[in-house]
C-alpha cells in the first residue's frame, strides 16, 4: 500500500486528489455521488465579495476532448458563501480550499480578511487568471506586477498557518516569471493551470457560439499544456509546492502531474461528465503507484526531472515534504 499523504506548504492532506475550482461548486452536489471527505480537499468555485449573476447564455460549447465555458463567475457572494457553503463543508468534515476572485486588489484583500479564522478553511487559492470576468482589464495573471499585488494583499490578510496558492494562467509568454513574482509576493504555492482562452464559431448562425464570445478551454484537450506548465514551474521553483490541474481524467493522468512536479492534483472538467471521477482517479492513482512499487507518493513528485533509472530521487527530500503539523480535523 502506498502512503498517499501529501504536504502543501506545511499542511498535510490524506491524499493528493482534490476537486478543481468551478467544477465542484462547494461540494454539496458532488457529496451525493461520493464522500467529499475522502478527497484531499474540495476546491470551491471562485467567490467574490458581492453576488454575481454571471454572463448571458449560451455559456458553454463542447469541443474535442474539452469544453469552452464563459460563466462569468456566477456566485452568491462571500456572505452567503461563508454562512451556507463553508459552514456546510466544515460541518461535513471536508478540507476546504477556498478560491477567491475580485476586480481589484482591495477586493482580494477584503475576501481574505473575511475568510480569516473561519472554521473549515484549510487553504486559499487566489484566482488571478480567470479570463471570464466582464472587466477585461483585470487579468492579473498576465502581468507579474499585478499578480504580485494581489498575492501580497491576500497573504497579508490570511492567517499564517493557512497556505495561499496563486492560480496561474497558461496564456502567458513565460509562466515561470509569473510564478516567481507570485512566490516573491508571498504565495506559499501555485495552482497550475487555469483554462486557456479559446473561441468557437457556430457555423449555422455564423456567429460566436458563446454569448461571451471567448471562453476558457478545459478538459483533456489542455492536459499536455498543463503538464508542460507544471514541469516549467517546478523546474524554475523546485521548492514551491504545486497543485496541478488541467484535463485530468484518470489516475495515470494524475501521475503525470505528480511526476512533472505537482504535490497534489485537481480533477476538474471531467466531473461534468463523470460526477464520481475524483474518487475514481484517486483509486486509480493509488493502484498505479502500488503497481510501480512506490511506497510514498512524495517519492514520485518531480521524479520526471531526474535521470532515468532512479525510481526515488536521491538527495534531499523532495518538494512539499517540509516538517508539518498534523492538520486539525475540522
Amino acid at each position, binding site marked *: 500500500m502506498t502512503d498517499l499523504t501529501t504536504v502543501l506548504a506545511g499542511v498535510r492532506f490524506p491524499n493528493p486528489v482534490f476537486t478543481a475550482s468551478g*467544477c*465542484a*461548486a462547494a461540494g454539496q*452536489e*458532488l457529496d*451525493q*455521488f461520493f464522500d467529499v471527505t475522502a478527497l484531499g480537499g474540495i476546491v470551491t*468555485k471562485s467567490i467574490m465579495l*458581492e*453576488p*454575481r*449573476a*454571471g*454572463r*448571458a*447564455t*449560451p*455559456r*458553454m460549447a*463542447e469541443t*474535442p*476532448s*474539452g*469544453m469552452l*465555458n464563459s*460563466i462569468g463567475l*456566477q*456566485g452568491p*457572494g462571500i456572505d452567503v458563501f461563508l454562512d451556507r457553503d463553508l459552514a456546510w463543508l466544515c460541518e461535513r468534515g471536508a478540507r476546504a480550499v477556498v478560491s477567491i476572485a475580485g476586480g481589484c486588489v482591495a477586493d482580494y484583500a477584503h475576501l481574505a480578511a473575511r475568510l480569516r479564522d473561519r472554521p473549515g478553511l484549510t487553504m486559499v487559492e487566489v484566482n488571478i487568471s480567470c479570463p471570464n470576468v*466582464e472587466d477585461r482589464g483585470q487579468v492579473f495573471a498576465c502581468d507579474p506586477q499585478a499578480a504580485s499585488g494581489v498575492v501580497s494583499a491576500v497573504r497579508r490578510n490570511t492567517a499564517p498557518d493557512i497556505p495561499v496558492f496563486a492560480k496561474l494562467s497558461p496564456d502567458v509568454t513565460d509562466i515561470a516569471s509569473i510564478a516567481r513574482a507570485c512566490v516573491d509576493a508571498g504565495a506559499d504555492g501555485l495552482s497550475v493551470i487555469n483554462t486557456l482562452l479559446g473561441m468557437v464559431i457556430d457555423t449555422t448562425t455564423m456567429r460566436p457560439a458563446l*454569448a461571451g464570445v471567448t471562453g476558457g478551454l478545459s*478538459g*483533456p484537450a489542455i492536459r499536455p499544456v498543463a503538464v508542460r506548465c507544471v514541469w516549467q514551474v517546478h523546474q524554475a521553483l523546485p521548492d514551491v509546492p504545486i497543485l496541478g490541474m488541467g484535463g485530468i481524467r484518470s489516475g495515470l493522468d494524475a501521475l503525470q502531474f505528480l511526476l512533472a512536479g505537482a504535490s497534489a492534483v485537481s480533477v476538474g*472538467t*471531467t*466531473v*461534468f*461528465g*463523470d*460526477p*464520481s471521477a475524483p474518487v475514481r482517479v484517486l483509486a486509480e492513482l493509488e493502484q498505479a503507484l502500488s503497481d510501480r512499487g512506490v511506497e510514498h507518493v512524495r517519492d514520485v513528485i518531480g521524479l520526471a526531472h531526474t535521470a532515468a533509472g532512479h525510481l526515488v530521487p536521491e538527495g534531499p527530500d523532495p518538494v512539499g515534504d517540509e516538517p508539518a503539523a498534523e492538520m486539525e480535523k475540522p
Partner: protein
Amino acid sequence: MPVQVLGDVLSVKRVGAYQSMTVIAPGIAELARPGHFVAVQVGGPESSMLLRRAFAIYDVKDRGVYGGTVEFVFAVHGKGTAWLSARRPQDKLDIVGPLGKPFRLPTTGVNTTLVGGGYGSAPLLPLAAALRERSCRVDMVLGAGSADRLFGLLEAKRMAASIAVTTDDGSVGTAGRVSDVLPGVLDKHKTDVVYACGPMPMLRAVAALCAERGIPCQVAVEESMACGIGVCMTCVLPVIGDDGRTRMARSCVEGPVFLADRVRWDDVGTVPQDTVGALARP
C-alpha cells in the same frame, strides 16, 4: 437523491423521427417522478465528448424481470445522440438520475391540460397517468413539425379525456401550432392547471396564454446543460424567486420544471439588469 449507474441497454427502438431507449438502471427507476430527467454519458469511457446528454424520463418500471428500467426518448441531433442511437441491447451505458425537480401534482382532482411539443410529450405521458390516479381530468394538446415528430399519440389518446393535435405542415390534426388550438381547449374543458414540455418558443407561447387567463402553469424547460447535477452553472435562465427578485436559476437542479409565471420569458438568453448580481452596463 440521484445515483450514477452503469446500466445495460435493454432496447433501442425507432419511434417515428425519434429513438426510444430503455436501460436497466436500478436505483433510478424507484425514485423517478414525472418531470425528472437523466444525464447520459456518450461515446464510451475514452470518448472525446466529455459532457453528458440530458433527457426527460419517459417511462420507468421499478420491478420486473430486469429490475428497475428507465426509458427516455431522444432525437439524433449530433455525434453524441448518433452514438447513443447505435447502442444495442447489453451495451453498457453510464447514466445519472433521477435529476431535477419533477412536476408538482395537485392534491385534489382538478381539470388539467398537458401541452407537448415534439418529443416533449414523453414526460407528459407518465404525468397524465399520475394525474389520473389523483382523479384529475386530463386533456392533451400535442404539436410537432410533422406527423413523424409527434411522440406518443396513441398512448395519449388512451390516457386523455380529449386530445388536440397540431402539425406545422398539417400532415396530422390542425395545421399550425399548439398555441393556435390551446385557448379553445382551455375554455372548453375549464382547465384549472396546465403542464407543458417542449421547445422554449412553445413554452413561452403557452405561458403567455395561461397568464392571460390566470391559469397556473408548470413548464419543463430545455436548456443546454454540461453536467446536469448543478455544478457547472451552464443551464441558467432568469427566474423570479419567492422574494420577487430575479436570479439566474440552474434548470438542472432548480428546474427543469418551473412555474411558468416565474420565468422571465422575454429575457431568456440574457441577464436582465435587475437580476441579483447583474453587472451595471456602461
